[in-house]
Every structure is written in C-alpha cells, then in structure tokens.
C-alpha cells in the first residue's frame, strides 16, 4: 500500500532471522570456546525478531495493498520421492500477513519484557534460544503454503512449548506439565496426521493448502473424506487450542515462565488451532453441516466450561489460562458458525490484550513471588503501572466499549445470533462470566490488604515488599495497551474485507453491521460481570465463601476442574493404559511370548535329559535299540509297500 511489494526473499527473511538467532545461540551454548555470554542472547533475539517485525509490517502492508489476496509466490521443492512430492513456499495473504504481524509484534514485546523478567536466571541464554526457535516455528506455521510445511512447524511450536513449559525442569510440576502439554497436543496431532495422510491419499498427493481448499470448494472431495479431514484437522486444532476435551494441559502449562505464557499460551501458539481452521475455512465450509455444528458446539462448551473454572481458580495465571481457553472456545465456535472474520478478528485482538494480561500477572509475580491471589492484595498502590495496564487489558477482555475486545466479541456474538440463538446465549453468559472472573482477579490482586506474597522462588532473586517492575517489563505492557484499546477500531475500517481476501469469492459474505440486541446484551453482561465481581470481592456482599457454599456441588466440580485431569491422566493413561493394558501386555510379553521361547529352551533341555537317559550305559539297551530300529523300519516298509497287508 505504502511500500513496494515485498519480495519473496524478504518474507523468508522474516522466518530466517529468528532461526539464525537460534542457531547462533545454540552454538554459543554448546561450544564454550566461542565466548558467548548470556546477555548476547537477548540482544540477538530482540534484534532478530525486531527485524522480522519490520519485515512483517512490510508484508502486511503489501498484503493490504493486494486486498488480502494471495501474493502467489511459487513454492520450492523440498522432497521428491516418487509420488511423495513436497514443496515448501510462503503464503502471503491477509491471514498470514496478519498472523505474522501479530506473532512478531507480541514476540518482540515479550522478548523485551523477558529481559527484565528472566534477569539473572541461570538459563537466560537457553531461554532466548528457545524463544527464537519458537518465533521461527510460529512464523513458519503461519506462512506455510503447504500442509506438510504447516504441520512440521505445528510440531515444532509444540516442541518449543514443551521445552519452555519445562524450562525450570528442576521443578517436578514444570517437568510434568511440559510432558503433559506435549502429549495431549500430540494426541490431537494424531488425528491431524491422519487427516494429513488421508487428504494426501485421496487427492492423489496434494499438500498445497490452496489447492486442497479449491478442491473442497469445488466439491471434488467426497463427503466422507471431507468429514474425516475436517474432523482430523479440528482435533489437531483442539489439541493445540485447548478445546474440550483436550483443554486440560493449558492450565498446567502455566508452570512455564510467565513471558512464555504470555507469548505462547495466550497469543500465538494456542491460537494456531484457530488459525489452522481458518486456513482451511473453505474446506470446513464445504464439509457437511453436522461437522461445522459439532465444531461450534464444542467451542461453545469449551468456552463456558473454562469460564466456570476460571471463576473458582485462585492462581492468577490459571485464571488467565482458563480465560484463554474460554476465548479460544469463542473463536472455534465462530469458525463453526461460519464466522471467519469474527474468529480472526477476535484472535487478533485477543492476542494483544491477553498477552498484556499475562505480562501483568508476571509483573505481579515479580513483585510478590507468587501467583496465588490469596497471597496478594492491595497492589494498586505499589504497582500503579501494572495496575493501570492490567485494568485496561481486563476491560478489553470483558468487552467494554470501545476497547478492542468489545468489537471483536461483538462480531462473534453477532454471528452466533444469526446462526444459532442458543449459542448466542451461551456466548453472552460466557461474556458475563469473563467480566466476573477478570474483575475478581483485579479486586483480589490490586485491592484490599497486601497478604504477604511468598518467599523467594527459584530463579527469582527479588524479595522484600512489592514494588513496581523494571522498565524493561513495564514498557512492553504500556505498549501493549495501545492495541488493546485501539485495534478494535479496525472493525470499522475494512478489516473484514481485508481478511476475507484470503477466501475464494463465493464464500466471502462479511458485512459490518451492528445489532442492538446483541450489543445491549453483551454490554450488559460485561458490566453485570464487573458489578457482580465488585459486589462479591470488593464489597464482600455476599461473601465469596457463601457463594461457594451456595453453589455447592457446582463449586466443587468447577474447583476440581470437572475432574477431566483425573479422568484423562488417572483414568485413561494410568489405569487403562498403564495398569490394565500396559501391565497385562507386558506380562503377556514376558510370560507368554518370551515364556514360549524360554520354555522351548527348557523343554529342549528336559527332553535332552530324557534322551540321555536312554543311554543307560547298559550295552543291551543299545543293541535293543538297534533291533527295535530294524524291526520297526522293516515293518514300516512292509506295510507301506503294501505287500503284507494286502494278502
């Protein structure tokens, strides 16, 4: 629009800049002789991502100039093995350009934030190495032109998520959470991979996303294939985007450093699932209606389920995590309802304010050394900047006019209103709950008396009374308030048209409008939530304990996270897989399969023992054997030759 069209090489540079940073830091760590120091790592990373950000802006600019349509770069050959032909390329259209912009900007801010948050940590260089790797992978994911390329980076972001959640691997909880995160998402990827193999097989070897979408849109794929493919892709997305029933890894993943949560588990990676569905939106649309409805309902259910858990969680980060799940549920619901633009728009705004909120929680943690809200309180005086930014983020998330969250959520609920009133109701309730738990957090954390924090946690050398975080942390937060407040205005400014540029003409049907019922109800829900939270946690009428008691089993259920963890981990994995299947199969292997082998050996020796007893040492046993042999052989031959018996 403003600049000349970006050449392909520059888009690749967006991807390669963090990769170079990663490689250099990796070499620096493993080869001690290079004289690499920790502080180089953060500088390198920030520089690289900064470069990527600038280029991403250029790309976005170009894409806007193209009205969001694909720039159509030719892919490059990666692998040729008979029919297995894979080409890697970059996709520059509205979706990827937007995602690149989101990823690079959030990443850049988080890197800056991290220099403060991770200051003095033993794994400082490693941290930035992994962050570079993550950024690279995420960029690779969003710019991929081939499904396989997308999948590869999909897995890579999973890996970096694993490594970063388990960054403080000495903490058993972190190590366990990392493993859990990886395996649960991998379980989703299982279906994704089936989908990938299925589509390759059924299309005769096509991996190119555009081509797949085109085939689906032209109804050249059978319904069965479409159902299989879409459900598989959705399962993969559900794993990554923490949709029910694969949602339970995300709260645990909060064991990672907070900037990681801020970048990966709120803004980018978890949104990759939504991105994936959006990427295949034409295919999803082509699939039978039941499929999309299923997707929508799962999204809605996830949204309300996560929100209910968020209300009762005491860990600030976990509340945010549940909130993330809930918001992702919104987006998935939107996709399922055909609300392509709404989903992406919400993804876009959510990335910024959720990242902001996480950074705020990190800042709080920096001061108090805890994430437990019961140990906080009254921080608004000690940390005014954090407080202010957190409030803005919360308001945006709650959907208060005219902040970014309001616009995107409104689009979303509008879609629901048009397609399915029940889902709209659910969405509105979730909006209420969102406002409630967000302001519960605010009241518990920033209002009231300070309740003491916690002793120094490993990896942090900050102690003493709470105080404002260093500038390296506050500045990114302040910067993030800008998109949290303003970016909703794009809704008025052709965002929909731009973002639909990626879709084929036939299914572009976005038109910006507002519906008074939806508008009113959502605004009511938001303020109702805020008010309710104020009543309970600020005015303490009714007291939260009373409320909990009143809710009775619901409260217990929600506080127990609906026992999904227990069922999945304890039930399925431990009991079914380990105790039942695993143990029995292992025993079967040991006793039966190996037993037959050893039994054969033992049996052979036994028979050998018997056989050698035939050699009694008595000569006449031997001669008798000879005679017996002769007699038997003669008789057998006589009988066989038939001469004797016939007569």
């Amino acid at each position, binding site marked *: 629009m403003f600049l000349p069209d970006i050449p392909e090489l520059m888009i690749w540079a967006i991807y390669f800049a963090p990769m170079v940073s990663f490689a250099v830091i990796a070499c620096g760590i493993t080869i001690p002789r290079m004289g690499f120091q920790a502080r180089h790592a953060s500088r390198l990373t920030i520089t690289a991502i900064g470069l990527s950000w600038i280029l991403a802006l250029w790309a976005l600019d170009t894409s806007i100039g193209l009205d969001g349509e694909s720039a159509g770069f030719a892919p490059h050959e990666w692998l040729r093995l008979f029919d297995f032909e894979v080409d890697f390329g970059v996709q520059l259209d509205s979706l990827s350009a937007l995602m690149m912009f989101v990823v690079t900007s959030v990443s850049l801010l988080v890197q800056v934030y991290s220099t403060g948050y991770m200051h003095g940590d033993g794994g400082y260089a490693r941290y930035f190495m992994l962050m570079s790797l993550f950024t690279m992978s995420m960029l690779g994911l969003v710019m991929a032109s081939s499904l396989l390329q997308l999948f590869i980076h999909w897995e890579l972001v999973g890996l970096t998520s694993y490594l970063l959640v388990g960054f403080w691997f000495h903490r058993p909880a972190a190590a366990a959470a990392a493993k859990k995160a990886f395996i649960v998402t991998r379980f989703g990827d299982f279906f994704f991979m089936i989908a990938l193999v299925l589509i390759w097989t059924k299309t005769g070897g096509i991996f190119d996303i555009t081509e797949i979408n085109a085939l689906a849109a032209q109804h050249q794929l059978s319904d069965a294939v479409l159902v299989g493919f879409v459900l598989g892709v959705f399962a993969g997305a559900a794993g990554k985007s923490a949709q029910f029933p694969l949602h339970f890894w995300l709260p645990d993943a909060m064991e990672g450093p907070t900037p990681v949560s801020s970048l990966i588990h709120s803004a980018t990676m978890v949104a990759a699932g939504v991105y994936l569905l959006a990427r295949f939106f034409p295919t999803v649309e082509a699939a039978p209606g039941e499929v999309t409805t299923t997707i929508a309902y799962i999204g809605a259910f996830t949204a309300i389920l996560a929100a209910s858990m968020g209300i009762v969680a005491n860990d600030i980060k976990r509340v945010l995590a549940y909130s993330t799940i809930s918001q992702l549920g919104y987006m998935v619901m939107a996709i399922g309802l055909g609300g392509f633009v709404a989903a992406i728009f919400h993804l876009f705004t959510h990335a910024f304010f959720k990242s902001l909120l996480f950074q705020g929680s990190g800042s709080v943690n920096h001061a108090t050394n805890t994430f437990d809200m019961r140990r906080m309180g009254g921080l608004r005086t000690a940390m005014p900047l954090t407080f202010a930014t957190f409030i803005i983020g919360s308001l945006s998330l709650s959907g208060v006019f005219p902040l970014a969250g309001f616009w995107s959520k409104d689009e979303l609920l509008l879609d629901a209103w048009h397609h399915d009133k029940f889902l709209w109701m659910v969405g509105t309730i979730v909006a209420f709950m969102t406002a409630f738990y967000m302001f519960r957090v605010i009241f518990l954390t920033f209002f009231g008396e300070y309740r003491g924090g916690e002793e120094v946690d490993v990896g942090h050398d900050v102690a003493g009374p709470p105080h404002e975080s260093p500038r390296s942390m506050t500045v990114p937060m302040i910067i993030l308030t800008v998109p949290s407040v303003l970016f909703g205005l794009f809704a008025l400014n052709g965002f929909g048209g731009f973002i639909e540029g990626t879709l084929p003409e036939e299914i572009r049907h976005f038109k910006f409008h507002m519906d008074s019922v939806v508008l009113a109800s959502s605004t009511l829900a938001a303020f109702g939530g805020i008010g309710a939270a104020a009543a309970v946690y600020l005015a303490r009428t009714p007291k939260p304990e009373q409320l909990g008691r009143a809710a009775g089993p619901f409260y217990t259920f929600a506080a127990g996270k609906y026992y999904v963890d227990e069922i999945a981990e304890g039930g399925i994995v431990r009991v079914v897989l380990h105790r039942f299947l695993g143990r029995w199969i292992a025993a079967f292997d040991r006793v039966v399969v190996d037993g037959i082998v050893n039994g054969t*050996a033992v049996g*052979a*020796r036994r*028979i*050998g*023992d018997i*056989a*050698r007893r*035939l*050699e009694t*040492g008595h*000569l006449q*046993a*031997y*001669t008798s*054997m*000879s*005679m*017996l*042999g*002769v007699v038997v*052989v*003669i008789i057998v*031959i*006589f009988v*066989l*030759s038939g*001469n*004797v018996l016939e007569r």
Partner: protein
Amino acid sequence: MTGWEQVYHIGPAVTLLGGAGVVLLADMILPRGRAPFALLTLLVLALAAGWAIWHANTGTTGPSFDGAVVTDRFALFFIFLFIAATAAVTIASTDWVKKLDLSAEYYALLLVAAGSMSLLVQGNDLILIFVALETTALVQYVLVGLTRRDRSAEAGIKYLISGAVAAGLMIYGFAFLFGTTGATSLDGIASFVQAGHEEARLPLTLGFVLVAAGFGFKMALVPFHGWAPDVYQGGPTPIISFLSVASKAGGFAIALRLFYTGLGGSETFISEDWAMMFGVLAVASMLFGNIAALVQTDLRRLLGYSSIAQAGNIAIGLAAVSTGSTLGPSGVMFFLATYVATNLGAFFAVIAISQRIGSYEIGDYAGLIRRSPMLAAILMLCLLSLTGIPPTAGFIAKIYIFNSAVQAGEQWLIVLVAVAVVNTAVSAYYYLRLARTMIVDDAKDEMTFRPTLSMQVVLVFAAVTVIFVGLVPAPLISAAQRAAETLQIQ
C-alpha cells in the same frame, strides 16, 4: 590281467597292510621301545599316499580280482581321507604312545585299520566287503581296549558286542541280498534290482534294512548309535579321534557304494524305500544327537553325541542319493572330508588340553583362551565349523549337502532339510556354550601352556584346512564331484 597288475590296483591298501607287518617286524628286530614306529608309520602312509596319487594321476580305474574290487576316484577319494586321518592321528598321538607299552601294536593296528578300510571302499563284492569290514571292526575293537584300563575295557566290550550284533544283522542281510539276487558282486545285484523284480521286494527290503543296520553302526546313526557316547567317553582319545572320522567315513563310503551302485541307484523300485529310510534315520540322528548333547558336561561324551548328530547331517546326502545326480554322494564326500579335518582338529585340541589340565569336564575348560590361546582358538574354530558358521568348512559342507538334498527334487527331502537346519540352531547351543566357556569364563588356574610341536603341526594343519576349505571350497567340491561320478553304474 596279471597278478601284479591286480595288486597294482589295490596298491595303497597293500602298502598299508604290508606296512603293518613291517612295523610288527621292526618291533621284533629292533630293541624294544627304541624303534621309530611313528616315522615308520608315516613312511608307510606316505608310500600309500604316493601310490594313490599315482593312481589318481594315471587315471587307473576299473575292476580287478575278478571284479571283487574296483579302483576308481570314489575309492581314491576315501583312501586319501583315511591316509590323511591316519597320518594326523599318528602325528598327534606320538606323545600319548610314549606312555603306552604297545606302540608297535598300536601303529600296526592303525595301519591295518586304514588298509582294510581302503580295501573296503574299493570292495565291489559282498564277500570282500564283509571281510574287510570285519577286519576293520575287529582292529578297532582291539584299539579301543588297547590301554586295558577300566573304562577302556568297558568301552571296548561295548563296542565289540554292539559291533558283533550289528555284524550279525548285516551278514543276515547279505544272505538275503545274495539269495534274492543270486549274486555276491555288486554289479550282479545291481543288474538284478534294475531288472525290476518287484516280487523280490520283501526279501530285498529285509536285506537292505539289515545291511543298513550294520552300516548304521559304523556311521553311528540312530538307532544304531548306542555305543558311540560310551565309547567316545571311555576309549583312548587319540583312537577315538581316529574312529570318529575314519570309521564313520568308511561306513558312509560303503553305504554309498552298496546302496548307490549295488542296489542299482535311483529309479529302482526300492530306491525310494531305502532313501526314505536313511532320511528317517538322519532325522532321528540329528534330533537325538543334538538334544542329548545339550545336557552333557563331559567333553568326549559331548563329542560322541555330536558325532551322532553329524552323522545325521551326512545321511541327508545318503537320502538324496536316490535322484541319479551325483550331488548326494558328492555331498556326503565333501561333508566327510571337511568333517575329518574339523573333528580331528577338535579332538586333537581336546587331547592337547586335557593332557595338561587332566580333565574332560567342560567346566574345567574355563578361561582357556588365556591359558593357551592357540588351542582355544583352534578348538573354537573347529566348533564353529561343526556348528556350520562361516567362514569355516563346515558351513560350506552343510550348505552343499542341504543343496544336494533340495536338488533331489522331493518334497520330503525339503522337510528333511528343514529339520536339519533347525537342528543346526540347536547344536549351536552346546557347541558355542563350550566356546563361550573357553573364551568368556574366568580360568580357575592361570598357568599357561602350549601343545607339543607335533601336536601343533597337526592342529595348525587342521585349522588351516578348515579355513581354507571354508574360503576356497571349489577344488574339494570338484574332487568330490568327480569322485562321485565314478560311483554311477557304467
């Protein structure tokens, strides 16, 4: 043909038998215990070998003594084997003989055994075969009891009585063959069988089964094997080493001659009967020998069972004989040739080791590789060859004989081969367990030792043969092939 020409045809045998007399004479003439009997024996063997080579080079073939004997490559092949085995045993047993008071008799008996076996393989007439076989047998009985120690005597009497019973069976079988076919010469029997006298099937069957019992005793095939472990354990080891190869080879040679030439070879009305009989005996031998060997702790006894199992392997070649190609016989011959080298190597190593450590228990062989690397290495090589693991001669021999059985083109032969190959896996257990004991386990006694020079010579020779044939088997296979061709009826 003049008398001398006839004697020329059986030159090697005559030399050996005459040599035995010379040795005995030398014992009488020279002062007791001084005479270089071993050298004399080797000289006789060298002469015999020279004569046999002369035969081979001049291509002397054909019957003599009115068809009682034939001189052909088949016989020469085995004569070479006997001479080689006898020479090796002679060299290897020089130390052992020093402690024996009967060295002249020992060498003379060895030479007679070799000579009579040479005649045996040349034999083409039941009478000569019978006499030569009995001579061999009697001499071997005496040899086994030669030390006149307790176990030697027990081994001797067991060997003798088993042998006598076997001989009784065999001669009864000869009677039926003779009576049914009206001939004592193998050619006569062959022409009768080939004429297809189906009505004579029963007595012929009776005859060849009884004869097979007699030969089976020599070959140590199940169920005529009973003597083997006891005799191997009790007899004097050098003599057993001779017995284990030469006697077995003689048994197989005469079985080939009789069944292949005498009974008219393949495609007679009884060929399938006896081929299958040998097949069954082969299976039984392999199974029994290998299974029973699994639990042995005495090395000589182990080798006894092993020899039964190996006899089963070789008998596959006998079973494959019925096809008319030379593969079966050549398989038997090639296998036997490698078996001679392998088994002699193993036995000599065992002798050399046990002379020092005074035990034949497998457990006492622990850590031998450190005490005497050469002996342990050679013994291991021979065990590998017995198992049939490359690059040893035993590997090629097994493959070759299995191949001949498959080439025969009978389904039941493939089953036979399948049993045989599975048995190879079983045999690996005890052969390699021994190898492991020698190489892996810790020695109880760290004192090192070396075999005597004469022993070293034969051991190295055996080892080199095993390896050489394993790598370059073609010449020996060709020799066996050419020898087997002469076995076919002209």
